[in-house]
C-alpha cells in the first residue's frame, strides 16, 4: 500500500540515501591539510545523512504498521475530481516553468523585463485575471519601481541582458 505517509518516508529515505551513498563520496573530499585527529569534512554530513536515512525508514515502518502518532494541523481538503486535479498539476507545472524561465531569461532579456514577465505569469496563474487593470499596472510598475529604487539607492548592478532589447536602467 502506497499512501501519503509511506510515500513521504520513501522520499525522505531516498533523499538521504542518495546523499550518503552517491554525493558524499564524490563531492566531499578530504584534503591533506586537515590534521588526522580533527574530524574530517565528511564526518558531519555523513552523520546527518545516516540519521536522516534511519528516520526515513522509521517513517516508512510507522506508515506500514498503520497510523503512527501524527496529528495533522492541515484542514481536510474537499474531494476533488480528476479534471480538477489535472488542472492543478498543469498550473503547478506552469508556475515551475515560469520560475525556471525567469532564471534562464535574466542573462538574455535582462532583470527588468524578466521580472515583469514573471510577475505577469504569477498574477495570471494565481487567478487574478479578472482584475486585469490592476494586474497589468502592478506587473509593469512594480518591477520598474523596484529596479529604480535598488539601482539608485543601493547601486545594485542589475543585468541588462545580452539581447539588449530592453533598457536595463543602469
Amino acid at each position, binding site marked *: 500500500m502506497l499512501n501519503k505517509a509511506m510515500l513521504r518516508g520513501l522520499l525522505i529515505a531516498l533523499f538521504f540515501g542518495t546523499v550518503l551513498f552517491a554525493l558524499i563520496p564524490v563531492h566531499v573530499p578530504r584534503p591533506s591539510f586537515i590534521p588526522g585527529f580533527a574530524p574530517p569534512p565528511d564526518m*558531519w554530513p555523513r552523520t546527518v545523512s545516516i540519521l536522516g536515512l534511519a528516520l526515513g525508514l522509521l517513517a516508512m515502518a510507522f506508515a506500514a504498521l498503520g497510523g503512527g502518532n501524527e496529528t495533522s494541523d492541515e484542514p481536510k481538503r474537499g474531494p476533488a475530481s480528476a479534471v480538477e486535479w489535472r488542472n492543478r498539476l498543469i498550473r503547478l507545472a506552469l508556475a515551475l516553468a515560469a520560475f525556471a524561465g525567469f532564471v534562464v531569461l535574466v542573462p538574455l532579456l535582462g532583470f527588468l523585463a524578466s521580472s515583469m514577465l514573471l510577475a505577469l505569469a504569477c498574477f495570471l496563474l494565481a487567478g487574478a485575471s479578472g482584475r486585469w487593470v490592476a494586474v497589468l499596472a502592478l506587473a509593469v510598475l512594480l518591477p520598474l519601481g523596484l529596479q529604480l529604487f535598488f539601482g539608485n539607492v543601493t547601486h545594485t548592478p542589475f543585468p541588462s541582458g545580452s539581447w539588449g532589447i530592453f533598457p536595463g536602467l543602469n
Partner: protein
Amino acid sequence: MWNDLLFAFESVATLANVLAMGAGILAGVVIGAIPGMTGTMAVTLALPFTFYLPPVTSILLLVALYKGSTYGASISAILIKTPGTASAACTVLDGWPLAQKGKAGKALNMALISSCIGDFLSNISLIFLAAPLALLALRVGPPEYFMLMAFALTMVASISGGSLLLGVVSACFGLLLATVGEDMYGSFRFAMTEDMKSGLSVAPVLIGLFALPELLRLIMFRDENHGQAMKLGDNRLTLAEFRGSLKSIIRGSFIGVVLGAIPGIGPSAAAFFSYGEARRSSPNSENFGKGELEGIAASESANNGCCGATMIPLLALGVPGDVITGVMLGAFMIQGLTPGPLLFQNNLNEVYMLFIGMMFSSVLLFGAGKLTVRFFSHISSIPQVLLTPVVLMLCIYGIYSISSSMFDVTVLLVMGVVGFIMLLLNIPPAPFLIAFILGPMFEDNLRRALAISRGDPSVFFQSAISWIFAGLIVFFVGLTIRREWQKFRENRAAKNA
C-alpha cells in the same frame, strides 16, 4: 558615574541626534519589513553617511537602523508569512495564523510592545552589566559553545508541530544543506558549481522556504481558496493579553541579553530559544503554532533583546559578534575611535552619550512602530491573488540586491519549490531553519574543540558551563521522550477503544 551620565544626557539630547535616530529607526522598520532587505543591508547603506556625521551621531544612526530592522522583520512575518530577517522566523509560527484569524493588528501590537521592552532591558544591561557579561562571553570557548548549540538544537522538539519524527527529518535536511560550500578548514563540500563554493546564504533559503510556498499553494489549489483577503478587525491588544505574556517577554529579553552578549550567536538563536522555552512552560502550550500571542511575545522580546547586548562585546572587548557589529566596528574606525577597554578610558563621554542615546531609541522605536502598525495593517486587506505575486517580486529584488547574485535568486526560487514539497508532505519548515542557522556553529565548534584537545572528547566536560548545558540537554531530551511516549500510549488507547 551619575554626573557623567547627566553630562552625557545634555550633550546627546541635540536635535541632530534625535533626528538621526528617528530617521534611522523609521527607515530600519521599513527596510526590515521588506522581505529580502536585511538589517545588515540597512547598516551598510548608511555607512557612507558616517563619513560626514560626528562619531556619536553616526553610531546612533547605525544602532537605530539595526533596532528598527529587527522589529520591522516581525511586520512581514505576521502579515505575509515572510520573516524580514531570520530572527523573526519564530514570529511567523504564531503571527501568520493570527493574521489569518483577522487579528493582525493585535499581533503587530504584541510584537511592538515585546520588542520595545526587550530593547529597553537590553540597553539597561548594556549600561550596567557590560563588564561581567563581556567576561562571560570570553569564557565561552569551543567546547562550551558546542554544548550551548547542542542544547539549542533540542529546541527542534518544541517547534516540530504535529510530529516529532518529521520535525527531526526537517532539521536533518537543514543541517545537511548548511554544509554546502567551504568548510572551516577551507575544503569544499557539495561544491558542484562555482557558485556553490560560497555556500547557501541564510536570506534566500529563509525567504524561499517561508514566503514562496504560499504563492505555489495559491496557484495550485486556487479552486478551493477563493483568494479572499484576510478578515479584519480585533486590532487592540488588551491589558489581560499583555499580562498573560509578560513572563515570556521578561524571560525572552533575558535570553536575548545573555545570548546577544556572546559573540557569534545572534538574535535568531535567541528567538528560537525563547520561543521553545515559552512553549514548554506556558499553560497555553497546545495553542502555540496555531496563533498564540505569547509565542510572538517570546520571539520578539528575545530578538530585540539581543540588539543592545551585541554592543557589549563590541564596546567592552572591541570584538564584533556579528556582521552588523562588524560594520559598526568599521564605522568606529572611520571616526578614529577604537572600541575596547581603551574606549572607556579615553572616550568615556562618547560611551555615555551612546548609552543615553540608545535609551532614547527604545522610546523612538515605540513611536515609529505605532506609526507604521497603522499603515502596515492595511496590507492584510489586499486580496491574496494580488499580494502573493507582489511579495515574490519584493523577494526577488531584495535578494538580488544583497550581493548582486543571480545564484542567490535561483536558491530563493528552488527553496520555494522545496518548501512547497515540504508543505505537501506536512514536514514543518521551522526546524529546517533553526538547524540551517545553528548547524554550522554546532559542527564548527565540535571540530574546533576536538582540534584543540587533539581528539580527546573529555574536552566537552571540563568547565561548569559545559556541565550545566549537558544537564539541561539530558533533562530536555528526557522530557521530550516522556511526552512522546505518553502521546503514543494515548493514541494506542484511542485506537483500541
